[in-house]
């Protein structure tokens, strides 16, 4: 078994059933296909998989989402992928757009949008109606975002090249905001992904205090800006793919303390998902009891990436 000092040192007490968590990281990462409801093809994804005699799994019956055998590149090169029938996406990632509980005609902001897994999911939920603003400061990642929006036939989206902090909109412009910000991505670490990946070189696999602090600072700036852009009565979802409470509960706590009209609300998905509550203590820090309304997703409870989601409303 691979040694994971980063996790063992920091999260042994935090993550329930820690040894199962470690073994889950040795399992191959499942490939998930989210069907695009905006697809124009005269057949659905399940029909296609059946026709192919593909040994697929539908982990949540309420969702048009299917897990399929690998390798990934075969699915990426599949004609129906090019024609926008589906998007390859981890199951946990679906939770953030679904948590927003959008109505089709809403005015929505996706603050850190590329490569667009969640943007295209939001478009689908919105049935291409209303307006979706997607911003992404990185040029190369923005190109991928545009490609994905085109591939999945999204036409209610405007793309902006700004950092979230610098968005040029009036305060209280949006009904719903998704802040799926930059994070240390610990939740995506699995043996098969890590082996041969660039991430080793980027200090992701060890706890680099300076790197984490700069991320934390950016996450704080982004959540403060999201608050300002959110209409009264609007919904904000903050999500990351990391286990680190400094990037999760601590950012949420900061927003709650700074903005008295912001409160956490339960995440209602309309189906069961095996999630754990956000933590109320970590490393000598205490957070409020409502933090339990936020959700931690672990790879040994749902076979996907590690993820964190918090849902707020602004009163």
């Amino acid at each position, binding site marked *: 078994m691979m040694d994971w000092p980063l996790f063992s040192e920091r999260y042994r007490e935090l993550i329930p059933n820690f040894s199962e968590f470690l073994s889950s990281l040795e399992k191959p990462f499942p490939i998930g296909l989210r069907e695009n409801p905006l697809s124009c093809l005269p057949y659905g994804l399940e029909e296609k998989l059946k026709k192919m005699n593909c040994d697929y799994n539908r982990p949540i019956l309420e969702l048009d989402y299917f897990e399929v055998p690998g390798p990934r590149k075969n699915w990426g090169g599949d004609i129906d992928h090019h024609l926008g029938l589906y998007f390859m996406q981890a199951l946990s990632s679906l939770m953030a757009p679904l948590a927003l509980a959008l109505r089709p005609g809403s005015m929505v902001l996706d603050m850190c949008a590329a490569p667009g897994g969640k943007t295209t999911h939001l478009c689908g939920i919105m049935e291409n109606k209303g307006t979706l603003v997607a911003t992404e400061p990185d040029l190369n990642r923005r190109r991928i975002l545009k490609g994905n929006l085109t591939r999945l036939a999204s036409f209610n*989206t405007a793309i902006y090249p700004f950092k979230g902090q610098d968005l040029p909109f009036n305060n209280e412009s949006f009904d719903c905001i998704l802040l799926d910000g930059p994070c240390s991505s610990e939740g995506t670490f699995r043996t098969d992904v890590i082996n041969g990946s660039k991430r080793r070189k980027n200090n992701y696999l060890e706890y680099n205090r300076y790197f984490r602090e700069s991320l934390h600072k950016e996450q704080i700036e982004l959540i403060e800006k999201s608050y300002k852009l959110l209409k009264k009565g609007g919904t904000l979802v903050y999500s990351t793919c990391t286990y680190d409470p400094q990037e999760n509960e601590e950012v949420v706590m900061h927003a709650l303390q700074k903005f008295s009209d912001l409160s956490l609300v339960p995440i209602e998905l309309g189906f069961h998902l095996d999630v754990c509550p956000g933590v109320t203590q970590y490393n000598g820090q205490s957070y409020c009891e409502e933090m339990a309304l936020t959700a931690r997703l672990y790879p040994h409870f749902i076979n996907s990436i590690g993820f964190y989601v918090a849902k707020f409303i602004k009163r």
Partner: protein
Amino acid sequence: MLPNLLNDNEFQLIQNYCFDRYGIEKEVWIYYSLYKRKEGLWLVNKGIENQIDLSQAESFGLRILSGKNYPYKITRSFVQVFLKHMSKGLIEVTSAQAESLLKRETIQIEAGPNFQKGYYVCLYQEKFVAIALRTQDAFVSQVPKSLTGQLSNNLKFSE
């Protein structure tokens, strides 16, 4: 970037063109606006320009027609949005022809009496495969070079 929206006359011309050429009913267009940008026409939700300041947006909507003028070339996005409304300009191909089109090869087809030049949507078993330009006796594949390698490696059509 502010959208250079088509005026009513220009919009009507496009509606007429799409009705004549592809059988798309005019009512389908009530939810959309079109704007001109670079070499093409882009589709957005009607009224988006009143909802949000687009002056600093890098892009918005989908390019559905390319070219500067008639006959516009339909794009893959056009097919994605309108295929379900199209009753003309469609042609069913065989599996071998589908594979050829995806390799950017030209396929030979005899021109019937109602032969009409222009861009066609090629379907295999009702499934969109490619856009092709019909000339006198051939369909010239319009599949972009960037896609052919990826697609033909993985494609296997079976009857």
